[in-house]
């Protein structure tokens, strides 16, 4: 009787069967890559804000210190977003009627807060605390990137748990001297120097490296 399929199908069958294996493996690889891609982590995307506030201008051009606006970064879990008043300390004098600043004046007039869009959003079950990181020698730039070069702010690091653990396991690769914390430009001359310095700082700042990857360090 007639064959149901043409003999060439045999080859086709073999190819598909073996191909399936490689396809499965390949798929896994793709998933791995995608979940770490900026597409998923939302890195490098300038977030739209009610006011076109330029960190580049204020930090780089005007040389404002981070703490001028982010006042509670050394004392609280939350770095602090400046109240409208803070903006107005200068902008009641300069750029008083620039259209760009209208929302700020409006906020002060109406006593309504400015609605910024959050850029660095750690999940609520991860209890991040700015003050302790600053105290132990983690620089702003380490997590927030070169804010002084961002006209509009974006997320520089993935902020995945993997990424957090990277530093919590090997802080010496990232720590810097206390006085350089707020310095955007600081970087150790070489990897070797960073490691030497890092090890010293771990000692000096009492960084309990073995404890840093305990669940309770971040989760409650």
């Amino acid at each position, binding site marked *: 009787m007639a064959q149901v399929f043409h003999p060439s199908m045999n080859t086709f069958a073999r190819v598909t069967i073996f191909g399936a294996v490689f396809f499965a493996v390949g798929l896994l690889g793709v998933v791995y890559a995608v979940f770490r891609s900026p597409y998923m982590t939302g890195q490098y995307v300038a977030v739209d804000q009610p006011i076109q506030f330029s960190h580049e201008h204020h930090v780089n051009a005007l040389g404002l210190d981070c703490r001028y606006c982010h006042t509670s970064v*050394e004392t609280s879990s939350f770095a602090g977003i400046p*109240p409208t008043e803070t903006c107005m300390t200068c902008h009641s004098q300069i750029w008083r009627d620039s259209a760009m600043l209208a929302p700020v004046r409006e906020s002060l007039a109406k*006593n309504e807060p400015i609605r910024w869009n959050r850029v660095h959003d750690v*999940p609520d079950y991860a209890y991040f605390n700015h003050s302790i990181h600053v105290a132990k020698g983690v620089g702003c730039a380490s997590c927030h990137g070169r804010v002084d070069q961002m006209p509009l702010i974006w997320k520089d690091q993935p902020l995945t748990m993997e990424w957090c653990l990277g530093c919590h396991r090997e802080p010496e690769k990232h720590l810097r001297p206390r006085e350089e914390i707020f310095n955007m430009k600081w970087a150790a001359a070489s990897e070797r120097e960073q490691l030497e310095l890092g090890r010293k700082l771990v000692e000096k700042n009492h960084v309990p490296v073995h404890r840093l990857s305990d669940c*309770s360090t971040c989760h409650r």
Partner: protein
Amino acid sequence: MRKTSGPDFSALRAGLDGQTGPRFWRSLEELAETDEFTHYLHREFPEAASEWADPTGRRNFLRLMGASLALAGVGVTAPGCDVYNDPPEKILPYVRQPENIVLGKALHYATAVSLGGVGTGVVAETHEGRPTMLEGNPKHPDSLGAIDALTQASLLGLYDPDRSQVVAKARAISTYDSFLGATLGVMDAQRAKKGAGLRLLTPSITSPTLARQIRALLAEFPDAKWHQYEPAAPHAARAGLKLAFGRDVSVRHRVRNANVILALDADFLANGVGRLADARGYGIRRDPGPDKNGMNRLYAVEPTLTVTGSSADHRLPLKAADVLPFALTLARKLGVSGLPEPPASTAVAAQARFIEALAKDLQAHKGKSLVLVGANQPPYVHALGAAINHALGNDGPDGTVEYAEPIEAEPVDHFASLADLCKAMAAGKVDVLFVLGGNPAYTAPADVAFAESVKKVPFKVHLGLYEDETAALCDWHVAEAHELEAWGDVRGRDGTVTIQQPLIAPLYGGVSAIELISGVLGHPGREGYETVRETWRDKTPKGQDFETFWRTSIHDGVVAGTAAAVVKVEPKADLGPVPAVETGEGFELVFRPDPTVWDGRYTNNGWLQELPKPVTKLTWDNAAFMSLATAERLGAVDGDVFEVAYKGRKVEAPVMVLPGHAEGSITVHFGYGRSRTGRVGSGTGFNAFALWTSDAPGFGPGASVRKTGATVRLASTQEHRNVDWNLPGNTAKERGIVRVATQAEYREHPDFAHHGEHGHEPKKGDTLYNADFPPPTPGSEPDYQWGMVINLSACTGCEACVLACQAENNIPVVGKAQVLNSREMHWLEIDRYYEGDPANPSVHHQPRLCMHCEKAPCEVVCPVAATAHDHEGLNVMIYNRCVGTRYCSNNCPYKVRHFNFLQFADLRTPSLALVNNPDVTVRTRGVMEKCTYCTQRISQARYAAEIKGGRIADGDLVTACQSACPTRAIVFGDIADESTAVAKLKADERNYGMLAELNTRPRTSYLAKLRNPNPEIETQTEPTHHGV
């Protein structure tokens, strides 16, 4: 603890303005926007009332209603736990940043919360302007840093979405202004007739400001009358002391000084005025001390098995009516002169030996003994108590009891006062009635027809937190501001005043009694702040300027030097004739305020409804409590509904067996069977007030009961029905879960706690595991090793710790139906074991929380490592990793893990979201949870210490349960450091680990319980398995 003095209104208002901290503004932003919430705030009566009836429905209702705050502060819900799955957030900074506020850091304010007019000093923790936790104020004489369940739970009352939120005229929405308009109108009419038709009805008042205002009001309207009515207050004590001393005095106990204490139907450890201070004094003296002979001895004579009775070394169950003859017999034995022959009582006669020994014991400790009489006993017994204390010299210089000026602004007989009012109203003599707080329509005795007579009053105003039974009868209802929302002042037991400062702007725009009276007196706009300051301005001590005085007083939470003056009084020789002890056929009916919902003011408080009532472990209901024998005689088991008839009135009440209850006596609790309350309290229990009469406020004879055939399921957190009543107790003893001995035995065998341990706990090195703490890592200083010791001798089972834990850790309320299915979520439970004769068992209380085993069985079985150990010995639970296999709970020998079988945490009701502690994840459905040793507090303490470059010092860090405990039975700290308090206790020979032979190496351990019985009553026996 960091405290910030002074008010900060922008900060307080922040709670509603949405200009607040990290975990919060997202929610507030929505809160401000969603019309559900606006509607929520403005609706007259909460909808879907029908839903309230059934508890599960109630939960669904809770879940479905309100603005959708759904994911506020709850990362766990987001399926997939990575950043990119979170909903986008907004950040709303302040427009003007208030000083003191550092976003993300808690502030602490000292204030006071009152019960029955008497204040307990608290320190409130606020996050971005919303109070999330109350703790005792160490500087307050009535708190000494501890806090009880009721005081703690008033915090939830603040956020109760069912609180009345409007000014209502004839139950239609109106405004405060139109109310004032109407009021001023009628007041003018009254002014014409000197206020002859004006009446004021208030609860007990100790507030100097309120008193000052009321007096001002009475001055303006000389013929007006001020009536007071507080259902559950020490009326008999007031009357009794007046009888004894011929004048009004208040009494203070120095329990700490007492070697021998006799509680005559007095639940002084958990109930009534000064409970926390008394419990502290008692707890300190439950320590045998170096000479192993330092313990006090507590005798309790009572009908109902109370917290005090369950902690007593000797407890004598007597019908309430037999307490008088008992006291009289004792008094005569102690040589109190001029006392008549005690009325015949077979029950007392049978106790000759007991009384003999007791008398001897009291004699032996003249000046260092103490007799306390409970509010339930008639005045005469209180007078007797005073006489006995005097005869024993206990009221001497550094004795155990002292008398002072009354703390009430106007001590009166409340029952008479209410009766007068009703008579006047019935006679139509009353044109204007102000009911300032309280709920007399519900709490009035059945023989005082308040509800009927009040209808005759043409203009009646009710100021209250809820649109309750009384509000329904009044023309005007004004939403009252919660104590935590308004300015005020209140006295403690010893008269010390606390100035109450608001922690948040009134959520529902209520006014305080102070503000209302100002309004009536013609200063409508005047803030409570002004009025209170005015009171204190002229009370400023010499040589101090007012502002400093004011600020220090507010900061400390106590106004220095305001304690009531001690008075030197002696009881009269002749206390007059013995009141005829009513005896009648049938049962004696004992009336008590409910241990959790009190007189009904907390009926709508989920925390208290679900808090297992001390000893009985009943939740969500009240019951007719009776002894095992009585129940057997009636053929009753728990939950059988009986019709209780008393003085011609009837209620239907479910029976609950309470071993140790006096024979022939039945106890009922107030506070349930409310006809108008919120969605939580509706349909719970029966109304005991319906049987209660003013002529016998404590108890009365002649009650009859009849089985109706109906049954209800009583949600008790410890199984009764399927368990032979003393099986658990005996099993616990046999397994060495509770270990008990007398002080005498302890002297003989200091290591009694370790007698007959089955299979000894493997010692270090015996096991395959490294039996030591995690090895210290070179280069970094040693880790803290957290551990806890619970002193069973001091624990009274008052459940304060349970509620503190609930408030601190966002533990959800699950509802009666779930409790019936033993799904309650309390991380810390107090186990109650009965032992011995059911007629009068000895009771053991044992707090049970996560043991933080060094070799935790839960950790090895979790497939996703959602529960693991950290280097400081914490057994941590990571909710967002948990997939909910529940294997950990099955494998936990202590069964301290609690599973979110359903969505228990209320994520929808906006006002309830405000009470959550932002430092603790709100758990969602399908995850396991358990005690964390307050890991969030550990973290906060660590940040504080390490930013300064130091270490956490012993005492800087206390867990919520520890800070609440009135007797200081719970001690927590670093056990690796020998110098800490907890390490010293760990070294004590009485220290033992529960089920330690399983080699779980529990970090939470217990100090074996010591009793101090009178050898003449209890013949000493050798300790067998873990003591007697």
